[in-house]
């Protein structure tokens, strides 16, 4: 059994009196393709925000690659191998497609302290190590100087970044658009650029928040193929939030259903599709009654 790349145990978050999420469990391994569905306001995006460190969970723990990430900042969690896209596209609007990806390519450089040394310092003390952070910061400072002095090494790295970003754009079919400003791209391409950008951070788990929203049937079909392809090509575990049932049912091996922050069902698509609680959450029990379907405890 492979190790868990992303794991949530009993995660809950409350805003004032509102329980936006409670008892949330999740486990993603390499090669997983799981789905998260639920009616509007069920807490799906909130779950993403907790997993990626935007919100601090009220209870429970989130682990990324085995490390507890409660209280870490989003960029630190991202560095551990968790990347996401946004439901309401949040590209860097006035930057070109290439630059959007290059921002995310931002690799840690080690001009002063070696990677091994920082890792060693990190391991020596169990918690987040101040020394390691200071060394990483110093590396970054030195790197600014390399940029300002335009050293040959820096120029090489910039070229390497561009090559890497171009490769990702190519995978997502955006290479011809690389010099276009992100805000000028059509909707479907913006969604794909968001995925390219997330991939550029070198994730092991990818969270996709409604990747098909606003796409037409043709684009959705392409997207389904693409998501499967990304999983194998980049050795990812993927979690998708999606309203389009056809897409979710079509690609996900396991689906978790949320309603009012509670997990009401979990299982393979077939099981979820026929679960009365799920149908009730989506359609309301009056609909069920009208259709003469089995309402728990009621007779047709």
């Amino acid at each position, binding site marked *: 059994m492979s190790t868990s790349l992303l794991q949530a145990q009993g995660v809950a978050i409350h805003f004032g009196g509102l329980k936006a999420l409670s008892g949330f469990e999740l486990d993603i391994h390499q090669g997983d393709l799981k789905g998260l569905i639920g009616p509007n306001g069920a807490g799906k995006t909130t779950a993403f925000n907790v997993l990626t460190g935007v919100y601090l969970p009220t209870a429970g723990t989130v682990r990324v690659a085995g490390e507890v990430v409660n209280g870490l900042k989003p*960029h630190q969690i991202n560095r551990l191998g968790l*990347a996401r896209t946004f439901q309401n596209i949040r590209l860097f609007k006035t930057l070109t497609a290439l630059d959007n990806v290059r*921002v*995310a390519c931002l*690799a840690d450089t080690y001009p002063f302290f070696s990677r091994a040394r920082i890792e060693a310092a990190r391991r020596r003390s169990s918690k987040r190590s101040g020394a390691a952070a200071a060394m990483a910061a110093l590396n970054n400072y030195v790197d600014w100087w390399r940029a*300002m002095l335009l050293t040959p090494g820096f120029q090489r790295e910039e070229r390497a970044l561009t090559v890497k970003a171009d490769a990702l754009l190519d995978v997502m079919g955006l290479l011809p658009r690389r010099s276009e400003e992100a805000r000028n791209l059509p909707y479907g391409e913006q969604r794909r650029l968001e995925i390219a950008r997330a991939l550029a951070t070198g994730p092991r788990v990818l969270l996709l928040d409604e990747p098909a929203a606003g796409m037409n049937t043709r684009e959705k079909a392409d997207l389904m193929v693409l998501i499967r392809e990304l999983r194998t090509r980049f050795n990812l575990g993927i979690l998708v939030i999606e309203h389009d049932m056809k897409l979710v049912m079509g690609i996900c091996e396991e689906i978790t259903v949320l309603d009012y922050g509670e997990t009401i069902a979990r299982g393979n698509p077939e099981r979820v599709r026929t679960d009365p609680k799920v149908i009730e959450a989506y359609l309301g029990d009056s609909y069920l009654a009208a259709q003469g379907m089995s309402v728990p405890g009621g007779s047709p």
Partner: protein
Amino acid sequence: MASLPAPLRGVFPVLLALLLLGALQVVVGQLPFFVYLSSVVGVNVILAVSLNIVNGMTGQFSIGHAGFMAVGAYVGGKLALEMKDLAISGIPHGVSDQLQLLASLAVGGAAAGVAGFLVGLPSLRLRGDYLAIVTLGFGEMIRVIVSNLEVFGRALGLSGIPQTSSFMMIWMCVFVVVLVARRIQDSAHGRSLLAIREDEVAAEAMGVDTTAYKVRAFVISSFFAGVAGALFAHFVPIINPGSFTFVKSIEVVTMVVAGGLGSISGSIVAAVVLTLLPEVLRSLFLQVGGLEGGAALAQKVDQIRMPVYGILLVILMLSRPQGVFGSRELWDAFPRWWGRGRRAEE
């Protein structure tokens, strides 16, 4: 320049500028009015370009730049006063002066950079208008503190600082700040700053340590504001807290906003125009209007400057909030002979 071997690309422009400015120094060094005018312009260009790194590139609106200029001016000026009677033996007097000036620029800039770090670390957690107001508050705090310190001459300020800032030194500093701003913009770090401007949440989610990057941008910006202040201290007869009120901050903000947030060349052009215009008008009135009426008119130019800045800001926001240049650069228009044009390289 694109064909230069990689190791030379870093230093070549600097050497070229040094040579050119050195030659110019020989030519214009003897024209006191021109040197004065170009000094005032140069200092404002440094201020505008450095503020643009924070306000334009990083999208964090700061309106307390004068505070950091004050730190640079006072620390650099104080150092120069202490070193006044020293001279480095074995080299010509003028060169020794310039080396001392360089030292006080470095120290003034560093002090301002430290101040920037101390101010930036807590305040950059705030956003938008709250950040603006808190930077204004810090800028004014710095001024109040300085005007209460005995070492800095309290309200009277410092006088007798050696007047050693030269045309060459000032424009070399201008050149360096522009070069640094441009190279940052073209680097991975600059792209991270731009990403923060565009969408902070997304930048953070893509692994950019937004707080650290904002603070670094702020420190670099403050450093150059300090350099500008130290230069300023070396060509005006006296520096006092009155030179660094938030009126000065707003003046710089006006330049950055008018030029276009995020456009380095916009900041340069706006700083040059907005500095020269009143100076030219003033000298014009003095020349044309005769001694009596001319002096009165010239005085009017000074008075009218601030309300004009105010009206300019309002008109700009109403008609062209992105500024004259937007976020475009002058040099994007000539990518061929300016080798590393941003879009050209891609």
